[in-house]
């Protein structure tokens, strides 16, 4: 199928969905609206709300806060994940000792940590960053750990025969291998950074997209909830697109995207 045809069909799906939504919420069938606008709002109301937010400029502050929280969560989580991943992979004993605890913390649904972080770090951005970090850390950690462990023994032997010392092995072999694994999970980890930020905001904050949605819900403003979701979706998609661009630049040497652990 040609690309333009595919695009048209993809667009049609959205158009039909919105049209059905519109019909069922505004036109009564046999005297009743199948989807009461009080619970489902209408596409036009949602669109108007989004336009209003951007026209008044109130939404920018919330977008910015969520963005900053996501970026910080991603940066701190990745850095910690890289360092601990390297450390564990190079020190099998340490990895063995901490193994059950790593599994334990990773098995814990991170949402339950949100109130504790709010208690410890207040209702500002840092409690949200902390929540995002706990999500991002494990993805990056597992991938870096795997990347260092899975260096081909032949490549390693070759590197040694080519005269690499410990530092050079780190720089020319372990580091690129670990990075390639980390980058292959970039979409997942960036996504989780945003999830951490939004969930944190939702559970207690004074700004951010999660806060906007939570506020709208509190007053049964369904149009506001849907509008918030649409803005959030577009926000995540644009970040994802940026990640794709970065990935293309950084992983030119790779034949196909490798499998990742999430």
């Amino acid at each position, binding site marked *: 199928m040609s690309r333009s045809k595919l695009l048209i069909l993809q667009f049609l799906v959205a158009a039909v969905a919105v049209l059905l939504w519109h019909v069922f919420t505004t036109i009564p069938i046999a005297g009743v609206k199948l989807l009461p606008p009080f619970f489902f709002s209408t596409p036009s109301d949602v669109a108007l709300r989004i336009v209003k937010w951007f026209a008044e400029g109130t939404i920018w502050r919330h977008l910015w806060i969520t963005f900053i929280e996501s970026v910080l969560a991603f940066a701190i989580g990745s850095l910690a994940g890289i360092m601990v991943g390297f450390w564990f992979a190079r020190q099998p004993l340490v990895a063995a000792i901490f193994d059950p605890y790593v599994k334990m913390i990773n098995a814990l649904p991170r949402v339950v940590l949100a109130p504790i972080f709010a208690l410890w770090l207040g209702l500002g951005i840092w409690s949200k960053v902390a929540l995002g970090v706990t999500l991002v850390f494990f993805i990056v950690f597992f991938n870096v750990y795997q990347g260092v462990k899975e260096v081909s023994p032949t490549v390693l032997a070759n590197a040694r*025969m080519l005269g690499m010392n410990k530092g050079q092995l780190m720089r020319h072999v372990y580091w690129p291998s670990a990075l390639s694994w980390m980058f292959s999970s970039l979409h997942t980890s960036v996504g989780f950074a945003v999830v951490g930020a939004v969930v944190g905001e939702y559970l207690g904050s004074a700004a951010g997209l999660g806060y906007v949605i939570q506020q709208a819900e509190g007053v049964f403003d369904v149009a506001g909830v849907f509008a918030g979701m649409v803005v959030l979706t577009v926000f995540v998609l644009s970040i994802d697109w940026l990640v794709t661009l970065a990935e293309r630049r950084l992983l030119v040497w790779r034949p196909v995207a490798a499998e990742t652990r999430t």
Partner: protein
Amino acid sequence: MRSTSLAVANGEFVAIVGPTGCGKSTLLNIAAGLIAPSAGHVDIFGTRLAGLNRQAGYLFQAEALFPWKSVLDNVAIGLETAGVERSEARARAHDWLTRVGLRDFSPRYPHMLSGGQRKRVGLVQVLIRDPKILLMDEPFGPLDAQTRQIMGNLLLDLWSADRKAVLFVTHDLEEAIALSDRVVIMSAGPAAHVIDEWKVRLPRPRDIAEIKTERAFQELHRDIWRVLKAEVLKGYAQTGGG
């Protein structure tokens, strides 16, 4: 592996042939210092080997290029680790790649190359360091027959320019005779050992494809094969293969 003794003279091209699983690769890895022998020792130019063999270059059977480095950087890295300036290393890598006909491929990454091209990169990656000893572990094993011949001739060409001691492991007897000065036959494992060796007195320079049609080549091949065949059959009996 059982007690085995093997001496390679400076500038000599020795081929080791034996059935699968007889420990040929182990022998090379010991010579390279990648693994320590459980008993015995390796002497390099009269010096006892401890740790990695710094005078040896090793061409592996499996893919050993750094997939995240361009072809040029793959070749240059061996000089950089030896303390050569990066720009100088890259210039020399470029020269070497030109010698093996890969000049235009230097900015590419290994996965964009064919198997034969990757082997050529691997070869210059090793040769650029100018090792005194060249260890080769079935380097052309995964290649098709034509590419193997081309690679063999290229190897002989590069080797004749400045003769290094070569230990070339293969399971292909024809390749062994065509390339080497001496063919060493190893027995089937376990407890593998060197059973016999033959001098190859064919004139150089040789062309791998043409030399196989010569009478002296065929006679030598017949003699060696008589011994090798028994070992190969023994090897099959042990592994249940065929």
